């Protein structure tokens, strides 16, 4: 790149006084030496001045009215569309929730724990209290104290002491017809 080409890059900075002092001096020296650079600098300044003095156009008188119309006609459907979108999201969420609940409920009722065939095989399906559990070391044939777990021992006639049987008052049936 020649000196003149390099100086061309500084034209705008020179015209705007934004060159550092040493480059500014260098540019001014180049201006004195090169007529071409001098003419070019003058013309760039003229172009810039012409640009800043170009006619300023103004918007049409009904600009604001048209803008208001545009805002109202375009934004109203947008709002309703947004509302529709929001409601459709909510509705689809509710539908999904209902379907999910229904499916989960069905799955739970059809689960293997609840099927009759396997019901007996699982101990945890119907938890049994410690008293009710059968001790595998005890022979059920000899002693089965847990065979009637819910039965009141005192109401069991087989377990009533013979003496108590003797003391039991005898009931007399009286013929009331007489």
């Amino acid at each position, binding site marked *: 790149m020649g000196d003149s080409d390099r100086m061309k890059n500084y*034209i705008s900075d020179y015209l705007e006084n934004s060159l550092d002092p040493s480059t500014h001096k260098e540019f001014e020296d180049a201006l004195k030496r090169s007529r071409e650079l001098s003419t070019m600098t003058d013309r760039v300044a*003229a*172009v810039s001045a012409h*640009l800043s003095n*170009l006619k*300023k156009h*103004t918007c049409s008188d009904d600009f604001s009215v048209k*803008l208001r119309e545009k*805002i109202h006609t375009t934004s109203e459907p947008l709002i309703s569309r947004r509302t529709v979108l929001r409601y459709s999201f909510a509705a689809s969420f509710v539908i999904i929730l209902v379907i999910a609940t229904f499916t989960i409920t069905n799955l739970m009722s059809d689960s293997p724990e609840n099927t009759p065939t396997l019901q007996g095989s699982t101990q945890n399906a119907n938890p049994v209290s410690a008293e009710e559990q059968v001790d595998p070391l005890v022979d059920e044939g000899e002693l089965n104290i847990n065979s009637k777990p819910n039965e009141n021992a005192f109401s069991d006639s087989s377990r009533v002491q013979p003496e108590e049987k003797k003391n039991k008052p005898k009931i007399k049936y009286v013929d009331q017809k007489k």
Partner: protein
Amino acid sequence: MTKTQGSSGTERAQQGSQPTDEELIARFQNGDTYAFDLLVRRYKDPLLNFIYRFLGDLVEAEDIVQETFYRVYKNKHYYKEVAKFSTWIYTIAGNLAKTELRRRKRRKVFSIHKETSAEKELELPDLKSDPESEVNTVVTEKLIQKAITSLPQKFRQVIVLRDIQGFSYEEISSIIKVPLGTVKSRVNRARLKLQEDLDFLLEDLENISN
């Protein structure tokens, strides 16, 4: 070479008792539509000139300004006070203008037709009521506009923002999201290209003034 259009409403507001752009947009974000009207009043003409110089079509430029304000209205909550309002609105307008240019490229046949009609306009200025000097001004303006429109897009954008809109290099850098050094270089190259393209006109103007 001075700043011409004072671009930002904030600067103008600081001089008087008018609210700044940032205050207005904050009020608008809180539901004050009158603040939006004030912003429209403040920016519609500078934006029109920016887009018109960029596209070269006044009707299209006004449509884009409308669209710019519509986007501001619709997306008011996207504005955060980290950037100046002027930077934000010019970025929106610039992007819309670039989209329009891309659309034009796709409809090239239509575009060629438009250019032809613009050239006709250039050849036959309305002489009915204008005095000679005014005709010269009109022709000069049309020639300058044609030269601006023929610049590559990246140069056109910076030269319009700098020399017509009067933005600082830093502001242009924020608007077009390009480093400061690149902006300065593009402005210089755009000016050099314009002085090259408008050589004959500048020569004539020099002769007239001499």
